[in-house]
């Protein structure tokens, strides 16, 4: 019998993997963006789990909003990546260190 905990553990696991993905990755900004998508997915899943088990549709409405915003975010993110690529001719994260103190 699949209980709520199963879902939650799965979602936590997914979240942790995607967090690890953010800083394992040093190859490519695109992968970073994908990791973020993955993270959002796990969060969304959590929302749905709770929405389902507490019988409250608001959670799903929220997921809807998150999806919308995430779509917008990835659109802008990709746009930034494109323009970055134009300037740098590379997407290596190692090269992006203008934040250095």
């Amino acid at each position, binding site marked *: 019998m699949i209980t709520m905990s199963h879902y939650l553990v799965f979602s936590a696991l997914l979240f942790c993997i995607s967090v690890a993905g*953010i800083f394992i990755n040093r190859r490519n900004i695109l992968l970073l963006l994908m990791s973020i998508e993955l993270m959002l997915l796990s969060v969304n899943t959590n929302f749905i789990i709770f929405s389902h088990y507490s019988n409250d549709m608001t959670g799903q409405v929220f997921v809807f909003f998150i999806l919308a915003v995430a779509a917008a975010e990835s659109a802008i993110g990709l746009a930034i990546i494109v323009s970055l690529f134009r300037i740098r001719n590379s997407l290596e*994260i*190692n090269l*992006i*260190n203008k*934040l*250095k103190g």
Partner: protein
Amino acid sequence: MESLLLSIPILLILSSIITGFSSKLLNNFYSGIISTSLVTLSFIFSIIICFNIYSSDNLILYENFYSWISVSNFNIGIGYLIDKYSAAMLVVVLLISSVVHLYSMSYMEKEKEYKRFFSYIALFTFSMILLVISNNLIQLFIGWEGVGLVSYLLIGFFYKKRSAIHANLKAFLINRIGDMFFILGIAMIYTAFDSFDYRTIFLNINELDLDNLKTYFGLSYIDLSCLLLFIGAMAKSAQIPLHIWLPDSMEGPTPISALIHAATMVTAGIFMVGRLSPVYEMCYITTNIILIVGASTALFIGLIAIFENDIKKVIAYSTISQLGYMVSALGINAYTVSFFHLYTHAFFKALLFLCAGSVIMSLHHNQDILKMGGLKSKLPITYICFLIGTLSIIGFPLTSGFFSKDLILEVMLYKDSTISFVAYVMLILGALVTTIYSLRLLFIVFYGDYRGDNANSVKEQSLIILIPLIILALLSLFSGYSIKIFIDMPIFMWSPSEIKYQGLLPFITHGIFSPATFSLLIGFYISIKLYKEKTDFKFLKFFLFEKSVVAIKSKYKFDELFLYLSLFMKKSSLYFSNKMDIALIDGFIVNGIPKRINILSTYLRTISSGYLYHYAFLIVLSLVIIFAVILVRVL
């Protein structure tokens, strides 16, 4: 009479201002005339006042004519208290001052800053008068510091001479050491009596609850306050170990040495103790300290004079030694006796200094006695005056010094204690020493052959120089006969202790047959042998004696001690400045904290490498940590 009294300081300060600020309006000669006549005028006033005081039995002039500070119960006035004691002092100061004024007119003639000199001595006389007539401790202190200041200015009168400006700094600083204790003493007296006024203090002294007052360092309250005041007097009156400024102060012009460093200022300490005699009557330990300090000064400093070759310094050491006599008399509460010696000493010491000045002038500012000699024939009047002064200082019978010194030695035996007997012996020895160095000076300077250059140019000085000498010589001879006045002198609120005085003639005969005369004779013999006939005593060559001569010639290393102290001050100043202020506070704390923050930030800066994944890692790490903390708290 009050107006006469008030006009004295006013005339003096007027004289100081006229000569000091007249710049080009007045030429040197006239300003000297004005200054001298103003001082002489005030001297005449003081004579009148003194005459009035002494002609009545119990006339005491007391008034506050100016209120300096008066807030609630804190009252300090400027006023006067003239009794027989201060009236006599007033006369002495003004007499010596006018004589010195007269003398300086000729002595300082060729100096460029003639008027500055007159301005200073008038200011000095003013301060001294302020001190003498004071009716409270603060006025006394103001006068005290005032004379110190003028002494500072006058010692450094020849400001181009390195030694002069060194000596005046030294004099001022050592006087300041005394002043520091003096002001503490004043504070103690004020705290006990709630007043600075002599009258209030003396009237309340018997009601003072001595048991309830605090004791400090094993001394009773009054003892300590008197001791502190006495340390002030030690500096001013050049007692061991604070005497070292006086020989150096001979860098000043010679009239100054006569006025300030022999007759008046240095006796301010003795005057002060006499003035506060009712308080000193309450002391037990302090009087003994005073006695020891006085007696040892009289003996040991006298010894230095024997080996000194500078004419002025010999007289300076003899001044210190004579001051020691006065101080020892204070130590057995014989204030009037001490004051009597102060009185006679003022005349003969001023005489000696002025004679020395005359000699120095004649020899074109040569002060080294080894280059003098045989001046008896060349400077006859000076010689006679010097002789009178010398006889007086060694206490030759029937001169003034005989009376006063003999009286001091006499009263030493009144007090039946070991200390006073030891002091007596020391003073007798001191008399011997006095005889030796005085006669040595006389013989070396005036007898024998002339050893300097330009023998022909040595001639007697002008009349203006000689008149003061003659006046003072007469005073040195005859002032001792006023002994009765001093023995009977009641110091305000204090009656003199019973001195069994049976008239002049018995006193003289008693004095002649005293150990003092004996020591005088021995001294005579030794000095004639040593310095006139130049015989070598074989027995003087033994080891111990030579060792002690070395010790005496080194002036017991007191100069070095104070030099060391001042060096220590400077060194600690440098140390504090470099190690504490610059290194510790500024370097370590004030500038060190930003520096350390800077260093820390250079380390911390490496964390923000600019790489996204590092930042992400840090964010997650901190998230995990925060999360962990929350978890630990919740679960």
